[in-house]
């Protein structure tokens, strides 16, 4: 029996009608639930595949796999978030921050006529390596499996200072672009430079980030105090996929964004 096959609803409907009509006409007593039994049925390999479903899914699966596995760009060297550059940045974090900065800068300029200053993502949000060799859309799904989308928040300079202090305190190589944080030997924030200029506490800065972080993810509470928020309705994964399609070879970016100054 194929699952898609419909039962004869007219007949069963008629039977139901008859049954109901007879019961009502004779004034039969009502039915009451007297016993209830509940259980959980795990879907394991002991159930065979239903052929109708399997055959129906096959062309969809083939199309997705073909698309996900088509090569978009070449990666010359494995980028792994656990390999840091002086503890404060990674090649994968630098790449994702720079790419996200560029896409967000273009969009916020066109849509809101604003200039982007900074991009901040989270180290924990990088979920996989980009291995040396061909890079596919599947790689983007592995690096960014979440449905997070790109947002721009406007923060006052003093909140940007909080951001720098948060990064120094967390001691994590969060992906960062547009900003240089100089730490002293105790990892306290010494100076903050944005787009090559010193941070001004009263100035408003535009920061590209993810909706996850704006909504309080990773305790980046300073992002919640934004004076303005712009949802760019662009998934971070799509930001990466679109970039992968634009270039032939991924750059290995080693520039430092957070520097510890030796005494």
């Amino acid at each position, binding site marked *: 029996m194929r699952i898609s*096959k419909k039962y004869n609803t007219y007949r069963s409907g008629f039977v*139901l009608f008859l049954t109901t009509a007879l019961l009502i006409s004779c004034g039969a007593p009502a*039915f009451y639930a007297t016993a209830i039994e509940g259980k959980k049925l795990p879907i394991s390999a002991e159930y*065979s595949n239903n052929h109708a479903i399997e055959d129906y899914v096959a062309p969809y699966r083939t199309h997705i796999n073909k698309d996900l596995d088509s090569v978009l760009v070449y990666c010359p060297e494995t980028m792994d978030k656990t390999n840091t550059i002086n503890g404060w940045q990674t090649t994968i974090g630098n790449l994702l921050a720079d790419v996200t900065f560029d896409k967000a800068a273009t969009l916020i300029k066109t849509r809101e006529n604003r200039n982007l200053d900074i991009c901040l993502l989270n180290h924990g949000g990088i979920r996989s390596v980009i291995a040396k060799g061909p890079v596919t859309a599947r790689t983007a799904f592995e690096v960014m499996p979440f449905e997070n989308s790109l947002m721009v928040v406007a923060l006052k300079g003093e909140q940007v200072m909080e951001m720098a202090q948060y990064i120094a305190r967390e001691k994590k190589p969060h992906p960062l672009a547009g900003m240089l944080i100089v730490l002293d030997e105790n990892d306290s924030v010494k100076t903050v430079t944005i787009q090559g200029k010193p941070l001004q506490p009263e100035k408003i800065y535009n920061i590209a980030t993810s909706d996850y972080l704006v909504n309080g993810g990773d305790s980046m509470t300073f992002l919640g105090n934004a004076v303005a928020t712009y949802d760019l309705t662009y998934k971070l994964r799509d930001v990466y996929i679109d970039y992968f399609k634009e270039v032939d070879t991924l750059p290995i970016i080693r520039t430092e964004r957070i520097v510890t100054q030796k005494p």
Partner: protein
Amino acid sequence: MKRREFIQKTAAGSALVLGGLSLSSFAEPETKKITILHTNDVHSHIDPFPIDDPKFPNMGGAARRASLIEQVRREEPNVLLLDAGDVFQGTPYFNYYGGELEFKLMSMMQYDLATMGNHDFDNGIDGFKLQLPHAKFDFVCANYNFKNTVLDGIVKPYKIFYKDGLKIGIFGLGIELNGLVNKNLYKETVYNDPIGTAQDMARTLRHTEKCDLVICLSHLGFIYANEPNKVSDLVLARATKDIDLIIGGHTHTFLTKPYIEKNSAGEEVIINQVGCYGINVGRIDFTFEKGKKSKMGSKTISV
């Protein structure tokens, strides 16, 4: 198929006989059985998990789920197949096809009814509506007011099913969307208090519609440990009456067995939720007996 027809004919035949002998005291009490099968938070999981998956190795999969459902349907004549929301989002099947395949497969499995989860708004309320032609089953949600949206008149508060002469009323409840879903996705959908809505719905279905069975299909979540007063299935069960079964979702709670809670009238309510990603199907069988009104405690519940 033949077996099902046979059972239905037999049921009609026995009703006829009983009708003729309804005054006789020696007539055996007739019993009827309703089987509820349910899923929640399947999140576009169509393929089984890989054999080396750390959490759910070689579990789930739509084609296997269909076989399981088919097997139960072969054994039981009165099956209702329900889903408690978050059909969408979680695998590239959703990213590529926007939920089309999920709805088509659920239709092939002959789902009877579903409620909406927050992720079912992920492509916007318009994205959801766009896929509805692929669903040969209805969605219900009583506490979302869709009046000023594209779903007005399409997603209704409840639906009534007739099985073997029994009347089964099922209503839906959705979670607060503000803070969980972008406003530009759910648009003018208005969220109303689930408890008040549920009490009204249950009263309508039990007393006005005179349903034999009242089921709530909820995407409120089972319980919130850090916020015990936040509306959840447990809070709902305690605060209302006239609901027999709450089928839940949202919190991805893998209950080892259905949970039994006392309602505001001291009667037992069954709550069930079977985790997520199509790893399990829940099954609840209700046996009905003629004329045996269940008093408190006279119901046998085995879970």
